[in-house]
Structures are given as C-alpha cells and as structure tokens.
C-alpha cells in the first residue's frame, strides 16, 4: 500500500514516514503542496498512491487548495488531513473540501495509524484479527475475551486497556500511552487511573492462574507477555 505524505515540517514528516514505514506501508514524503499535487496526479514519480496524508498549512500552496484542486481534477484518493486547528468549523471545512478524515496536532501516532488503517481498509482485511497471549484470547470483532476457554466479562475501559497491551504484547507500554488510548489525550486525571484498571484486570485474568500475563515495569507502565 502506497501513501503520499505532504508535510513541510521535516521532523513531523519524518516521524510519520518512519512510523508508517514500520507498520508496513510504502511512504513518499514531500515538503510542499505544488510538488505533492504533481505527484498525486501522477505527473512526477509515477503516482499510483492509495492514500494521501496532507498537512493543511504548507508553503506556496495551502493544503485546502491542494485538496480542492485534487477533487476538481476528479482524483478520488482517500485523504487524511493533519491540522493544528482544532476548531470544528475548520474541520468541517476540510471535510467539505473532500477530506476523508482528520487528525489534530499534536497526535499520538497510534491514532494516526488507526485512521490510516481505517481509511485504507481493503475488503479482505475486514475480518478483525484475534489477539492471543498464552491462553488469553481477545477477539477485536466481538470484543470477547477468554482465558483457557473461559469467558471473562470486562468493562469498556478494562477491555480498551487490555486490547492495547495485547496489540503491543512483549513491549512496555507507558501509563500515558495507555491512558491516551483508552481515554483520549485530553483527559488527564492526575491519578494513575491505569493502575486501578490493571488491578481489576489482574483479578479477572491472572488471579489463581499461571503463568501471570500482566507485568508491572516500575515507574513506567505495564507489559503483557508470558
């Protein structure tokens, strides 16, 4: 899957490019609207993109103009807009101009990736994956969780935290990242609410079971692994 990223800030652009690259996408990064438009229309670099990630504030030609020109030319490429403007009318304007979705800066990469995946979802990947760690199984479609075949009832937040940890099994996820995923980054409870959820999850998943699957990394966060 080929993605064109148009972003004038090099660090942000590079971050998006590498992140998407690691997630298995082929990414081209350009720094201005003119160049991006030429590439998207296939006049330079061969074209053939499946998706575009577009920053709205660009030198020479604004993201909105790129979008309008693209749609005027009848290019139906899915477009994910990056914007620092979080006002609703601005987002509505972008969507009216033909954007398919937007992410507000600063964004968690997880969120960008989720939206890219959603936009680029092809029919064959519609059936959602099942996550497994040892005897613990999480079905992201039915949102059902079982351990050793026995059903475990989880509240929505417990499910969200567990899903996030299982998606990144074997990797230490920090409390902040977990909070961002299960709530959103606007929510800053000031207490380690994640700890409470983990305590509950342990009771339901690890109590009187071996091996223990949820592990604490002191001062940082949690990891799910065998």
């Amino acid at each position: 899957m080929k993605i064109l990223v148009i972003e004038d800030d090099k660090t942000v652009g590079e971050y998006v490019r590498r992140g998407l690259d690691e997630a298995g996408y082929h990414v081209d990064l350009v720094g201005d609207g003119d160049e991006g438009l030429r590439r998207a229309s296939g006049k330079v670099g061969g074209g053939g993109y499946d998706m575009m990630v577009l920053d709205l504030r660009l030198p020479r030609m604004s993201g909105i103009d790129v979008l309008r020109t693209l749609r005027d030319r009848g290019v139906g490429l899915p477009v994910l807009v990056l914007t620092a403007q979080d006002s609703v009318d601005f987002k509505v304007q972008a969507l009216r101009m033909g954007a398919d979705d937007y992410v507000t800066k600063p964004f968690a990469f997880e969120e960008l990736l989720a939206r890219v995946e959603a936009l680029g979802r092809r029919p064959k990947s519609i059936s959602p994956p099942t996550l497994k760690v040892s005897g613990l199984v999480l079905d992201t479609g039915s949102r059902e969780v079982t351990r050793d075949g026995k059903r475990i009832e989880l509240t929505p937040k417990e499910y969200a935290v567990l899903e996030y940890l299982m998606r990144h099994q074997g990797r230490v996820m920090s409390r902040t990242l977990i909070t961002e995923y299960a709530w959103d980054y606007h929510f800053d409870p000031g207490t380690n609410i994640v700890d409470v959820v983990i305590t509950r999850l342990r009771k339901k998943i690890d109590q009187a079971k071996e091996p223990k699957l949820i592990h604490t990394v002191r001062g940082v966060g949690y990891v799910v692994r065998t």
Partner: protein
Amino acid sequence: MESIRGRLTLWYATALILSIAVFAVVLYVARRSDTYQDLDRRIQSEADLTAGILAESYRARGTLVENDTAGRPQLTPDVAAVLEVVPDYLLVTSRDGRLLFASPDARALTFGEFEQLNAITRPPPLADSHTPGRYGIRPNGPTLHYIVRAAPHAGDQFGAIFAGADTRSAELRLEQLLLTIVIAFFVGVVPAILVGGWLAGRALEPVDRMITEVREITDGRSLHRRLAVPMARDELSRLAETVNQMMTRLERSFAALRRFTADASHELKTPLTVVRAGVERAITRPGVAPETLAPLEETLQEVNRMTELLDSLLTLARADEGRADLHREPVDLREIIEEAGETGELLAEHAGVGIDIRLPPQPLVVPVDRSRLRQLALNLIENAVKYTPRGGQVSVELAGDNGRAVFTVADTGIGIAPGDLPHVFDRFWRADSARTRTSERAGTGLGLAICKWIAEAHGGTIEVQSRPGRGTTFTVGLPRTETTAS
C-alpha cells in the same frame, strides 16, 4: 432618580417653581402695599375735602353750627347734605367734643362701635396736624384705616374731622389676587413640567438608541457594527463617534486575537507534535531500559498537559469571540454519562470514595457535541472525587426534566467557602492550596471555566451549591431542543 431624564425634569421643575414663587411673592407684596396706600390716600383726600368744604362754607355764611330741636348742636343741614355724599366713615366734632356730623356708613354702626370711633377724635388735634392710624373695631369688627385732622379756616367751633375706611374691600381684592396666582401657578407649572419631561426625553432619545445598539453588539461576530451618528454636530454625535472609534480598536484587537489563535495553533502545536513524535518513537521502541523509559514517560505526560492547556486557552479565546465551536448531533446522554461514570468509578476506587450513578430508564436524546459533553462530565466527576476525602460519597445523576436534561454531580467533600463560590468558574482561579490534596498536582485552573463554556454554548446552564465541610453540588441543565447561546 435613576435616569438623566428624570433628573433633568426634576431640576427644571424645581427652578421653574422657585422662580414663579419668587415672582408671585413679589407681585403679591407690591400689590398689597399699593392697595393700602390707595386706601390711605383715599381717606386723606376725604378728610381734606371735608376740611375744604367746611372752610368754604364758613367763608360764605359764617356760622355752620346750629342747635337742633332737642338743643344739641349739629352741622347746618345744607352743609351736612353736601358732606352726606362722602363715602366711608366721616365724623365731624365740635371743639368741646360733641359730634356734629356722622356719615351714613358711620350711622349704620352700632352704638358701641360708633363710640369707639368717636373716642379717637378726643382730644381734638392741633391745627394743621394729620394723625393717621389703624383701628380694629372690637369684637370681630373690620380693621379701619383712619385719619384725624383739624378743620382750620372754618371758625372756632370745629374740633376734629375723622375720616376712616375699613380694609375689607382691599383685603377682598388681595384674596382674589392670591387665588389668581395659585390657579395660574398650577395651570402653568404642571403642563410646563410635562413638556419639560417630554423635551428631556426627546433630547436623550438618541442615547437610548445608542444603548440599544451597543447592547446588540454581544461578541466578536457583531463587532463590525457601528452606531448611527446623528446628523447634528452635538455632544451625542461626538459620543457616537467616540464609541465607534473604540469599537474599531476593539475589532482590530479581536482580529489580532483571531490571528493569534490561528497562529498559536500552528506555531505552538507543531513543535509539540515534534517533541511528541520523538518521545513516542523512543518510548515504543522495543528493548528500551526502564530507567530511560521513566523520564520519557514524564516528558510525554508534560507534552499532553501542555497540549491540553493550549486547547483550553484556544477554546476559550474562540468562545470570547462568540464562536460556538460545537459539532452537534443527537446523542443519548446516558451513553456519555455511563462512560464517564465508569471512569468515575475507577477514580473513586483509587481514592477510596464511594460513587453511585443513576441514569433514567428511557433514552435521553439531546443534540450535543459528544466530545465536549464527555469532557464536561469527566471534569465534574473528576473534581468531585478529587475534593472528597477517603470514605466520602459522590453521586452522579442524569434526569429528564420537562424540556431539559439535568445532570448533577454531588459530593460529600470539603466544599467551597461562600466567598470563593462566585469565582469557581473564573479562568485560572483556584481555591487556596488546602483544597488540593498535596499528593496531587493542581489542574490547569481552566477546567470549570471550560465546563461553564460547554454548558452555555449548548444554551444550557451550570450552577454550583456548596457548604464548607459538607459537600458541593454541580448542576448542569441542557435544553432538549437545539438552542444556541445568546
């Protein structure tokens, strides 16, 4: 008086009444003295006329006194007939004090009254002297002005001439004058005050119009409006121009704020994105040592805090401009409160606080901005848990009330001092540090300001009741049909 119009009318009326009153008093006093002077002149001339007639008659016939049938001296009848036409009270006495003549008016008096007058003529005055005086005939009789004089050149028989007139007619005229003044006063002053009030109102009408016009300029969107400047080059047109100039400056600073809002979004958020990107990449890389992870985690947390603060500031800046930055759709509020409630349960569990959440059995669909409402609910619940000591209780309730959805968060926490209560929705306001548990970081100080904005942008209300040591209750009321904040 609350209005300039009322004050102007009052001053005008006072000035008018005072000047008319001074005028009336001066007029009355002058007329009064004139009237009495007239009266005195009249009796003077009556006395002089009598003296003249007597002198004339004496020169013509010598003797003027004769005895009547009873042997009493009296004025010769033909001379008496001449004096008969003199009005008022006229007495002529002989040198030895006997009455020689009395005019018809004097004869009409009672004997007692008559004797009082007669007594004044004794002893007879010296030749050529005039003795004016005033005399009240008792009891309850009229007051007389009189004059007593001698009758020279009329032989040696005459003692005194007494001429007097009562003041009744003069007083009657003065009473009539007074009545006229009083009637004229009311007939003149009342309409004058009414007209004065009307004129003041008319003169101030442009001010009322300006007040209405300025009042209609409520926020950033209506700042382009200007007041109509009156044609006349008077104080009001200068006032309108001054207000217009002020609004131009205001509009410019609002425009600058809008530009800043847009710029700040980009100029501050892009670097934050960069910091975030770096930290996030580092933190999610497999195999990072925990001691490296901890500071990265703290950095990430600070980035989020800054982002949140920036978002709040920008939201409030836009709210000041009057832009209701909402994306409304019909939502069952139970979903939002239930979700926020779960978070509340987690927070309460951590803080050792009991929590109960009551939702209505039926869906409560209200057109709201879902994420803003979630923010509002989370903020209030989080605050309630934060300020409730271990063992306390937080109650969250959602209810449909005719035409309104009412969301209540009540706690049994430390409460808010009455003096602080009016400020809880102010930006960057915090109660003294005692309100915050030392173990926790204080928030941005914008949370409740944002809550207030969210409630009001939905056309709703937010209220707080609190008793120190007993607890606090926040009540949010939202209209169930879409209305925008005024």
